[in-house]
């Protein structure tokens, strides 16, 4: 909490520098077929109230029965966060009134959560790493959904989400800038997606953040915080923090004080505003839910889940660096999504890892981004891209031709090797043919031949000319060597 102050992260106010302190509560929807305490489905996009049991609708006399898979998912997530797993935890009632909360309380965990303290390592864009402490993770029910714009005087309530399992993951106030906050959420999302415990789909609201923001003079105790509720994109998290920090600095510098309150981020205006109506509701009157016994399981149950945990992003990154000789940056890009890492690895197995990484990151990702596609929509399969990498490795095609080949495979499909054969794309390695082209270029450019002797960097121009005259099919290394030889350049 009191790490050395990094002056680059400070915000300049009118009266000096300010440090922003951020903690986050992430609500992550648990990946499960059925809800936390009922047998109704969790799937998105159903007709209104179609995925609702009488338990979710809080009909009198209905009793909750916990879904074992949700418990497993919470434990898996705890293990992925290197966190303390509590073999005994307790469900409490968090009491408040809202039309989309038919019980009048949310079943949550208060004093005894299923997961305790853990840690997330976050890689920043500048190559540095920060450690973010996890305070706790607990299981709770989601509420239903209210729609306010279908009728002038009525709100429409759909309980399909009501009772869906959420994991609330609470960080320590270890974040010091909007960049760190965004990187933390990104990393947490990656971990959850690797574990398969939450799909991380922020557009559907399956991952959302409450952001606690306060400001202080460097070295001072923590300031009064405001909580920004339900921010549903990583970009908005950054904007909300920037706005909120500056708002607080402005108030303090004008001689005011910060009221601890709940605020809402308005993406349209890019600002936060007070949610006064939530103030009174803060008296949640938690008490243990008498409908539910304490949640207890054995260390064997935990160990069994630990054994079957997939390789996590940090481990995969280390392995990619060690096994394929990748740079830290390339490894980081590839592991950000499990699907991308798997795709890369199908190509890299038995091939040059660095070449595979280059092709996946520069050509494939570049092209996918341009078209707005995900890796799962890639028209070029791992086998096809592997085939292209093979052809370059064997010296059958040049790097330049390989890019043309990539375009053909992207738009027309087909086996790269067959395409190269059919369309005569093979690299010219026949020295006679290359020599002929080299001689022609030298003969036609006597003036430049004189210049290049003074200025060897002009060699590239000659290489370009030869490549042009051979339709890009000459082996560039052979051309280079031959030109140097004939022009007498070291």
């Amino acid at each position, binding site marked *: 909490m009191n790490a050395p102050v990094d002056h680059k992260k400070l915000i300049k106010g009118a009266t000096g520098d300010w440090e922003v302190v951020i903690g986050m509560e992430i609500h992550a929807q648990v990946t499960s077929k059925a809800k936390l305490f009922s047998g109704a489905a969790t799937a998105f996009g159903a007709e209104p109230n179609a995925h609702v049991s009488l338990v979710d609708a809080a009909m009198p006399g209905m009793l909750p029965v916990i879904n074992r898979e949700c418990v497993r998912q919470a434990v898996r997530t705890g293990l992925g966060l290197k966190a303390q797993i509590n073999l005994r935890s307790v469900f409490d009632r968090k009491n408040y009134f809202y039309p989309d909360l038919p019980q009048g309380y949310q079943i949550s965990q208060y004093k005894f959560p299923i997961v305790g303290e853990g840690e997330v390592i976050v890689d920043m864009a500048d190559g540095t790493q920060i450690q973010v402490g996890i305070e706790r993770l607990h299981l709770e029910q989601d509420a239903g959904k209210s729609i306010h714009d279908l009728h002038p005087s*009525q709100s429409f309530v759909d309980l399909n989400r009501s009772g869906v399992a959420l994991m609330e993951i609470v960080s320590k106030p270890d974040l010091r800038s909007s960049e760190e906050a965004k990187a933390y959420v990104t990393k947490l999302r990656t971990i959850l997606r690797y574990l398969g415990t939450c799909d991380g789909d922020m557009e559907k609201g399956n991952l959302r953040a409450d952001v606690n923001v306060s400001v202080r003079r460097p070295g001072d105790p923590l300031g009064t915080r405001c909580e920004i509720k339900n921010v549903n994109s990583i970009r908005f998290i950054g904007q909300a923090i920037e706005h909120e920090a500056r708002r607080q600095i402005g108030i303090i510098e004008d001689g005011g004080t910060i009221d601890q309150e709940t605020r809402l981020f308005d993406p349209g205006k890019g600002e936060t505003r007070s949610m006064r109506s939530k103030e009174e509701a803060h008296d949640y009157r938690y008490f243990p839910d008498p409908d539910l016994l304490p949640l207890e399981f054995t260390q064997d149950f935990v160990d069994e889940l630990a054994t079957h945990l997939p390789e996590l992003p940090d481990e995969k990154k280390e392995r990619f660096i060690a096994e394929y000789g990748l740079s830290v940056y390339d490894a980081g890009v590839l592991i950000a999504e499990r699907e991308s890492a798997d795709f890369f690895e199908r190509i890299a197995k038995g091939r040059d890892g660095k070449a595979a990484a280059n092709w996946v990151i520069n050509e494939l990702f570049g092209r996918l981004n341009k078209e707005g596609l995900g890796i799962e929509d890639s028209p070029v399969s791992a086998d096809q891209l592997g085939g292209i990498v093979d052809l370059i490795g064997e010296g059958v095609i040049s790097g330049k031709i390989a890019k043309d080949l990539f375009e053909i495979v992207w738009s027309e499909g087909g086996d790269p090797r067959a395409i190269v054969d059919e369309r005569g794309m093979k690299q010219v390695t026949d020295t006679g043919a290359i020599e002929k082209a080299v001689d022609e270029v030298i003969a036609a450019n006597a003036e430049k031949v004189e210049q290049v002797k003074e200025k060897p960097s002009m060699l590239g121009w000659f290489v370009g000319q030869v490549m042009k005259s051979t339709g890009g099919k000459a082996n560039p290394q052979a051309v280079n060597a031959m030109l140097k030889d004939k022009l007498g350049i070291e």
Partner: protein
Amino acid sequence: MSVDQETVRRIARLARIAVSDDDVPHLQGELNAILAFVEQLGEVDVTDVEPMTSVTPMAMKMREDGITDGDRPTDIVANAPASDDGFFLVPKVVE
């Protein structure tokens, strides 16, 4: 422990129970009588005793992750004072 009239109003508001000003003194008396009665329990030493939330000495039963319920929106909204197209309708609530 006792409650003042302001606390009585606050508890009523949190529970969404309409209490008229005339009722407050009476309710305050009743609540304080109950609290005084419960206060006798303070005489028992409960150091290191965990709060008991259940009398059954058994582990919590769990369900398997299967879809066993749902697809009956008409039943779900059957008792609602107002509904439309499978939705519950409530007086407008907007933040």
